[in-house]
């Protein structure tokens, strides 16, 4: 597609996000919530979540609390009375033949998420946040030429939060930023692991295009089951191009529900508007209205941690960090907590920027290499603080510091212990350094002559010779100063 056509149209995107909530038990029964990708099928199932005749749902208050946390974090207004409703449709993974959801009066409404996109800061409005239950899983297999459909109800009834945005997103980058911000928030709140491969967060995108500058919305399509940010981006890109092509050719967009075909990298039609499900929503007669009083809302609000965006802004402001550093350090709560814990243990003379460099540089590299997470590493924040202090105070030089951190990472021992055991303590003794500088100059008369002839870069080579003699332990600043002194004296 040409650049001209691209700029001719604007993409309009709204996202529906389904986030499972990691409560101990399911939304309406006492069954444990387990990892439905690994638990043996149908092992956490009871009469209620398998829809046995005569069973009734009972609301899990923890799930309500989790839902309120997310809603409040998104700046929503909580409806003190909300209504559960039945969404009726047949599918073998839906044991009751309906999903208990919320329809007319959701748990919360009118929130927002602020995101950064290449166009700058954007505010995406959140229409509603509501509680519902997840479905089970249906797998089709072929056995000796006979096809079977297998139902696993472990996931049936797991609490699900549906978060619906207004069609405020205008770009692929914006969609990704919104998705990532939402994922970050639910992880900060510890209500969802954010593990997209396990399907605990799932996206659906409403996509339309319109002539740039137009105020009216085009006909939208709904793309279901987008299970990664990459898939979501590709689906939006695909649809934007497809719709532009249709409009360019004088056609019109059909309102339909689409799926994403990974193999063909394209969307495909699942249902036309005419075939759209009539879910026959009606208030769930088995559940009285969900009432949350102001006192409960206040308690939940007070329990909220500092949220990612606030923390990001504070890190920039308070610690004078770059956008990049503040953003990676606040990407998840564990990293931000770790960083601030290190800061607490270093002297004020050590700037947050130095600590940030250690964390985002060496430590992240080690973590990535080991394929682990910051919340489980052996290097405690106090220990990293000790190392940073040692370097800052000149007890070891920065290069040695990296080596020491590597050893701390594998062994879990402290910096001082490693430095002492391996004799890595940095030498700043000027007499000793003066002596080895003199030795180095004496041993390399040709290079010294070159230097004197005006080739100043030789000084760096000479510096390396001195450091080698000191087995890396010499304080580099003292060495450089001494070398300069002796060279000028010559």
């Amino acid at each position, binding site marked *: 597609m040409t650049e001209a056509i691209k700029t001719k149209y604007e993409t309009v995107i709204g996202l529906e996000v389904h986030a499972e909530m990691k409560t101990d038990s399911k939304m309406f029964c006492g069954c444990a919530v387990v990892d439905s990708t690994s638990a043996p099928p149908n092992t956490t199932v009871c*009469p209620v979540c*398998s*829809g*046995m*005749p*005569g*069973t*009734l*749902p*009972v*609301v899990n208050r923890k799930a309500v609390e989790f839902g309120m946390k997310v809603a409040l974090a998104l700046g929503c207004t909580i409806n003190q009375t909300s209504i559960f409703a*039945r969404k*009726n449709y*047949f599918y*073998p993974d839906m*044991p*009751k*033949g*309906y999903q208990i959801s919320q329809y007319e009066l959701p748990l919360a409404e009118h929130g927002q998420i602020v995101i950064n996109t290449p166009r700058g800061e954007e505010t995406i409005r959140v229409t509603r946040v509501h509680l519902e239950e997840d479905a089970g899983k249906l797998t089709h297999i072929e056995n000796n030429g006979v096809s079977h*459909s297998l*139902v696993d*109800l472990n996931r049936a009834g797991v609490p699900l939060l549906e978060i619906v945005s207004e069609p405020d997103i205008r770009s692929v980058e914006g969609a990704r930023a919104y998705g990532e911000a939402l994922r970050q928030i639910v992880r900060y709140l510890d209500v969802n692991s954010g593990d997209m491969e396990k399907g605990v967060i799932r996206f659906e995108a409403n996509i339309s295009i319109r002539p740039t500058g137009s105020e009216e919305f085009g006909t939208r399509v709904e793309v279901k089951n987008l299970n990664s940010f990459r898939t979501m981006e590709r689906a939006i890109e695909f649809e934007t191009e497809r719709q532009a092509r249709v409009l360019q050719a004088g056609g019109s967009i059909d309102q339909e529900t689409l799926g994403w075909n990974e193999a063909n990298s394209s969307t495909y039609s699942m249902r036309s508007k005419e075939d759209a499900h*009539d879910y*026959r*929503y*009606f208030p769930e*007669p*088995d*559940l*009285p209205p969900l009432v949350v009083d102001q006192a409960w809302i206040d308690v939940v609000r007070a329990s909220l941690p500092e949220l990612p965006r606030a923390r990001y802004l504070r890190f920039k402001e308070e610690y004078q960090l770059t956008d990049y550093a503040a953003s990676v350090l606040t990407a998840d709560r564990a990293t931000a907590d770790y960083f601030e814990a290190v800061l607490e243990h270093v002297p004020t003379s050590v700037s947050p920027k130095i600590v940030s460099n250690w964390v985002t540089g060496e430590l992240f590299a080690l973590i990535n290499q080991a394929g682990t997470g910051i919340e489980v590493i052996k290097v405690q924040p106090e220990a990293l603080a000790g190392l940073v202090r040692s370097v800052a105070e000149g007890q070891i030089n920065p290069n040695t510091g990296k080596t020491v951190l590597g050893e701390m990472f594998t062994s879990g021992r402290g910096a001082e212990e490693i430095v002492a055991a391996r004799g890595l303590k940095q030498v700043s003794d000027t007499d000793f350094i003066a002596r080895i500088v003199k030795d180095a100059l004496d041993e390399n008369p040709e290079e010294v002559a070159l230097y004197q002839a005006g080739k100043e870069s030789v000084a760096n080579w000479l510096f390396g010779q001195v450091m080698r003699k000191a087995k890396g332990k010499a304080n580099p600043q003292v060495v450089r100063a001494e070398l300069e002194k002796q060279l000028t004296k010559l």
Partner: protein
Amino acid sequence: MTELTELTITQALAALQAGDVTSRELTRAYLDRIEKLDARLHAFLHVDPGRALAQADEADRKRSAGDPAPLLGMPLAVKDVLTVEGMPCTCGSKILEGYVPPFTATAVRRLLEAGVVVLGKTNTDEFAMGSSTENSAYGVTHNPWDAARVPGGSSGGSAAAVAAELAPGALGTDTGGSIRQPSSFCGVTGLKPTYGRVSRYGLVAYGSSLDCPGPLAHNAEDAALLFSSMAGKDPLDATSVDVPAPEIRLSNGNLKGMTVGAPKEYFIKGIQAEVEAKVRAAIDQLADLGAEIVEISLPHTEYALPVYYLIAPAEASSNLARYDGIRYGPREAAESMWDVFYKTRGQRFGPEVERRIMLGTYALSAGYYDAYYGQAQKVRTLIKRDFEQAFEHVDVIACPVAPTTAFKIGAHGDDPLAMYLEDIFSLPANLAGIPGLSFPVGFDAQGLPVGMQLMGRHFHEAGLLQTAHIYQQATDWHLHRPALAD
């Protein structure tokens, strides 16, 4: 000595307490009578003598150990829409043929904890949808007073079982009259409690906002005993109400100081003359006992039928969606997953169930919701308000239970609307969520029982039972029993 099966629950408990009879003897007597008569009546869908006798023996052991459980050793029949762990539960439907639930309904569990012995499961219209038990997929139950007639429904099996002394008491469920109307047709006393007063957990849902389990027995005193043990908040039913289970102490005496309202909308043209006459006579009797009778108006009564036939089928269409042959119950073989659904549901639901699923699906459909379901909910509020206003002036409302006495099997065969009209006097209590009690007040010329209904404000079951009890102290209609030749 009289036959053991002639005893009321109150009498039988006294005999058990006195050591005059054991639970095993009592249970055995009922099992024998079921064996002898139920082939003709077909009140039961499932009888479990082994289990009942084992429970009876357990009760006898407990009694000798001093266990004070209030209903210890008392046999009871349970309508087949209430689950009893390990006992088949068909709901009168082929779609649950052979289904054995893994848990016990709260109402039944509470009665088991109070000591009852479950004899078996009684016949019902399929998923409690009907007023005659003719909609049972397992055959009609015959009225003990006239085998050619229906026992009413949907708790017809329970009502017939009590009337025929196959059980001293039974559990039923009432969504639009399903306890009261068969009680009236069979000459027994049946209570539909306040909605939410008795847990619905384990009651296989028909109309969730209307369904209510309740007792059927020979008299108000027995019904009160069963009701007290069933009622109370249940953590498994979010719609159950946190009002403590009542301990009902019925006293003899009179009705002085009580105001009884007779709603003019319940004495209308088309009602069987003898029904009206007997109910009016019973109201006069209440006046003789000291009650003040006033005529009242419940102006929205005529809307109860259409409102009910929108709300109940709407809820049913959703409640019955789970029967797909996938997780339990029989499954029709088919090539594809969807064909399993279509064939299982298509072949195993009866016509009345299909009719109500279609009605309800329609009422909830996009574009029709506001005009049907939404509007019905609004009118339901008006019906509730009628009662609230009435109860500002009267303590109880007295009226017929049903417009007729028991009709002939097949009489309404081709006319579902005529069948629906059987419930016009019982539906309003369900829509309003208030308690209703049916008890016998006479017989028509054919010797068929006529029932009267008392309705009260929410949680006023004790008042209804007390009124009926005082009436029953002064009359003997509740003592009549059908002649069942051996």
